[in-house]
């Protein structure tokens, strides 16, 4: 566990170091202090991880990583948001949202006969609430000839 934490920590910290800009004293001072703090913290964590290395396995995976369905569910949760960001403008909100929900319902084992109807109804409800009531400009995409 310590090492799993460690690997995450190192990854983050390596990215944090080169970000410190060397500009004039004003704006760089604070990030400098922060970077130093993170660096020291990381070193202590690494040292602790090193000390515990003998007893702790290199990487402890949570039980869910052995179940393909759960791995897929996790990836789909992240993937569907990425999908939304990528295609919402061109495909339009209603279609994007429906596809996203259908995929997630499928992987979370919602009964098939519920899947599509619920996805469509929910998409329309959210569209109505945000587009009509709160006036958020959700994109129409391919449906823009049928704006209502």
């Amino acid at each position: 566990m310590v090492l799993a934490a460690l690997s995450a920590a190192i990854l983050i910290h390596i990215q944090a170091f080169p970000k410190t800009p060397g500009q004039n004293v004003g704006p760089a001072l604070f990030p400098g202090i922060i970077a130093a703090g993170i660096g020291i913290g990381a070193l202590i964590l690494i040292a602790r991880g090193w000390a515990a290395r003998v007893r702790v396995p290199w990487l402890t995976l949570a039980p869910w990583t052995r179940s393909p369905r759960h791995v897929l569910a996790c990836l789909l949760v992240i993937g569907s948001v990425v999908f939304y960001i990528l295609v919402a403008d061109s495909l339009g909100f209603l279609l994007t949202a429906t596809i996203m929900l259908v995929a997630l319902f499928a992987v979370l084992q919602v009964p098939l006969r519920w899947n599509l109807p619920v996805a469509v109804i929910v998409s329309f409800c959210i569209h109505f609430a945000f587009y009509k009531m709160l006036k958020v400009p959700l994109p129409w995409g391919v449906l823009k000839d049928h704006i209502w």
Partner: protein
Amino acid sequence: MWGALGQAFAMVFEPYTIFVMIGASLFGLFVGAVPGLTATMATALLVPVTFFMAPIPAIAAIVTATAMAIFSGDIPGCLLRIPGTPASAAYTDEAYALTKKGQAELALGAGLVFSAVGGLFGTAVLIVAAPALADFALKFSSFEYFWLVLLGLTCAVFITSDRPLKGLIMLFLGLLVACVGLGNPAGFPRFTFGNTELLGGIGMISMMIGMFAISEIIRFAVDTSPPAVMVVEKVGNIFAGQWGLAKKYPIQILRGSALGTLVGALPGAGADIAAWMSYAMSKKFSKEPEKFGTGHIEGIVESGSANNSALAGAWIPALVFGIPGDSITAIVIGVLYMKNMNPGPTLFTTNPQNIYAVFLLFIIANIIMIPLGVLCIKAAKRILKVPRNILMPVILLFCAVGTFAINNALFDIGVMLAAGVIAYVLEENDFPIAPAILGVVLGGMLEENFISSMIKSDSNLLGFVNRPIAAVLAVLTLLVWFTPVVMTMLHKKVPLEEYIHH
């Protein structure tokens, strides 16, 4: 003052505000009762909607929804042995043990009644303490604010987390995120990598929606635990015997409420830590500690009032100094800034009607909790049967649209997703989230006050302790820093075996 109070009444009892409060109550009760949805998540989900409201209804929605959610978190804890929110986790086993003894109504009733009592106690402290503190804080300069913010951050790392090192790293990460953008004293674009979206900094609201909602959805998606079984057939009269409990445990109620308010007011620690601490305290001071864990109501009475009083306590530093007392008020502060109700002592002098309205909202929320809570308990069976595999994807979609709604920017959805994934990974590896949130919220304030203090004192660090209040705050901060160090040193002298027994 009376004029302002009248205005506050008018604002709160406007039909629209009342309508919002009822809606938010039902929403809060539902969110709290569904395991895996927390009170903080309720707040995060409300933000996109409150974005389109006037300030008072917006605050009303958050205050009522969170109060309800913290109470209704007790329901699945009692019936399923799964806490509905982390704030109920401390006494879930106890409540479930009572249910198995056939006393579910006693446990649920105590949860409801003493939640309301604790909430009202916390509100009373808020009403008394906040204006007094604000009066005092009017004299503060950048030196005092610098130390105050530093003290708050220090508390978040050392007091509220049992892993100070990881807490400290999280705090630094939060501060680092706060550095992004143009919003620093020099107006210099930092960490923007030439990206115009990053010039304005990382959107605090989208980040929090990610950290509190997306991470929970991921956690649900990978959850392998089998579904829990409900043991209760029917819940009887929940008010039977509550008066007797109040007469039997007056000190416990008072102690729980006081401790809860205090823990709530400490930056970084919220209702969940308040409940754990007061449950432990209740056991320690109880006349019958051996009964704890076997279905004994005493601990539920005490910690049930503690977690609701913590909610109000957290608003004290949030309103007076802009320092959030828990993760809910961290989001609230973001909302207040959006509504041009910037927290700080001047909020109490220039717009007292708004502050009075907040007080009123707290009182009303804790009173309407009782009838609505009864309804919720009656409907509990149905709420607990809501298919979460449908609910979670819908919440995910709602988060994406809600985040988009704040700036009409897809970029914010990306921020939300990244924050959610990072928060999930870090939490799975035992990094506490609270210090990072505080770092993000307070980073700008800390740097601004630090830099302007440096300029005022001509880069002389002694200037930081020249004013009496600043000096006291400085000593307090250093004390919190070094107490754990001294403690570990003392502990090392204790023989190893004894150390293990601790």
